[in-house]
């Protein structure tokens, strides 16, 4: 029992190390060229060599993503609140939002460049556009799943719609909200890198694009790893906040 608990705790790290070892082994065993598929060791060497450039690019990508993500939380929550609390708004807006969400964001970046020029604008906006939808849908779902009996109990007391939303709807939608943040943050990184690759002048996306065009595969891979690590860290942060604030929704898993 105790041993299996410990294994579970360390399992992500064990899997990571196993994958890296396998990767290294395959590259060495088949003699794959560096410019086609670099080994983890070669990527690690790039990290050491281009440490400052990678850090600078990562920092840039990080805060552009955070700006876009903050925007998507603000807009996503407001829209979700609107369509979750009003059936009219739901019926009117939902089809349009679905259509909008289906538009490939890569196709939108050139348009954003025309409007805002090369630089910050397209990155922030792409990160926002790609990540607000799950937040909206989750908040709306949380608000819409209110038991009719409970609503009666409160309405009899003279509760206004607003009371019901604030006292019941909003707390109830919090677990959905955090679940959506975890999806949205990874999407936001995708959005930023996408914009940087097509129309950036800095950031990890730009670095990867440049490295790729110079056939410097290990550096491009180092960029990929950096993005992955940042997204993973943010995901863990939101998981942690989620457990702290909405423990009531996860009691089943804590009881074991």
């Amino acid at each position, binding site marked *: 029992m105790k041993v299996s608990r410990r294994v579970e705790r360390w399992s992500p790290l064990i899997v990571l190390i196993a994958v890296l070892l396998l990767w290294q082994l395959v590259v060495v065993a088949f003699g794959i060229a560096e410019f086609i598929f670099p080994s983890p060791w070669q990527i690690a060497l790039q990290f050491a060599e281009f440490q400052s450039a990678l850090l600078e690019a990562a920092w840039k990508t990080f805060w552009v993503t955070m700006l876009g993500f903050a925007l998507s939380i603000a807009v996503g929550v407001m829209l979700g609140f609107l369509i979750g609390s009003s059936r009219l708004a739901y019926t009117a807006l939902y089809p349009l939002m679905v259509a909008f969400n289906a538009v490939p964001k890569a196709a939108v970046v050139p348009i954003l460049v025309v409007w805002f020029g090369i630089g910050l604008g397209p990155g922030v906006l792409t990160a926002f556009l790609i990540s607000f939808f799950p937040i909206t849908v989750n908040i709306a779902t949380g608000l819409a799943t209110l038991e009719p009996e409970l609503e*009666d109990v409160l309405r009899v007391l003279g509760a206004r719609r607003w009371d019901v939303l604030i006292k019941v709807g909003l707390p109830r939608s919090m677990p959905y909200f955090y679940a959506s943040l975890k999806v949205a943050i990874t999407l936001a990184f995708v959005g930023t890198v996408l914009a940087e690759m097509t129309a950036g002048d800095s950031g990890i996306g730009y670095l990867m694009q440049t490295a790729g065009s110079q056939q410097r595969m290990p550096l491009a891979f180092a960029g990929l790893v950096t993005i992955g690590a940042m997204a993973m860290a943010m995901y863990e942060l939101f998981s942690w906040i989620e457990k702290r604030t909405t423990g009531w929704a996860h*009691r089943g898993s804590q009881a074991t």
Partner: protein
Amino acid sequence: MSFVDFRGVWLAYNDELLAQGHYAVEDISLQVNNGEFIAIVGPSGCGKSTFMKLATGLKMPSKGTITIGGAPVTGPLKISGMAFQAPSLLPWRSTLHNVLLPLEIVEPYRSSFKNKRREYEAKARDLLKSVGLAGYEDKFPWQLSGGMQQRASICRALVHEPKMLLLDEPFGALDAFTREELWCTLRDLQAAQKFNVILVTHDLRESVFLADTVYVMSKSPGRFVVKRAIDLPRPRDLEVTYTPEFTDIVHELRGHIGASRQKTGSPSAAVS
């Protein structure tokens, strides 16, 4: 003058049903005295819950008039508290804060909630204590058993001191022993505070044990078919449910339910 007064009340849920003459309840008339405990029994789907919505002002009648506490009903009645079969407590609030919820909403408590928070908390604790939940105030709903959750739900319905308590099959989901315990809890609360109770149930023993008057409702049309005064002396002990007088009344009411069901052609169903 009676506290609750229904005169010739009909309700169709929307205009379309009204035009077709499909009513959820038909020609309901009843007069309830101050402090009276009434029970409404009948097969499922007979319009008992519709009656609840009318009595709380959540629905307006299509025909007829409803007067409660001397005033015609025009909207949700704040002098009433409700509890249902599902306790529907909020999982992120402790038992105490679930019970306090109505005070955050209903006037005059709402405006003084911040200033008098301590006083209201003490009041809620007293109420929880009176139903045997002392020591569980700071537990969360999922840490309580089904019976305890239902006790808390009844406290939530009573915390703003309503003149009328409406219960829609409140003990339906509980096991037989817990149910009988809660009957006694409700009996004692009502004896102490003298509020009106309208109890909707399909448990005949429950209705006879608790109520002063039992109304039997028929299914489609949803009408009252029998009014039966229960003259068993109070306070009633659980022992009374094993006496011949008690059984006779239950038997008699059961006969009416059977009769009211035969019209729809279905065989009798188990009514505990």
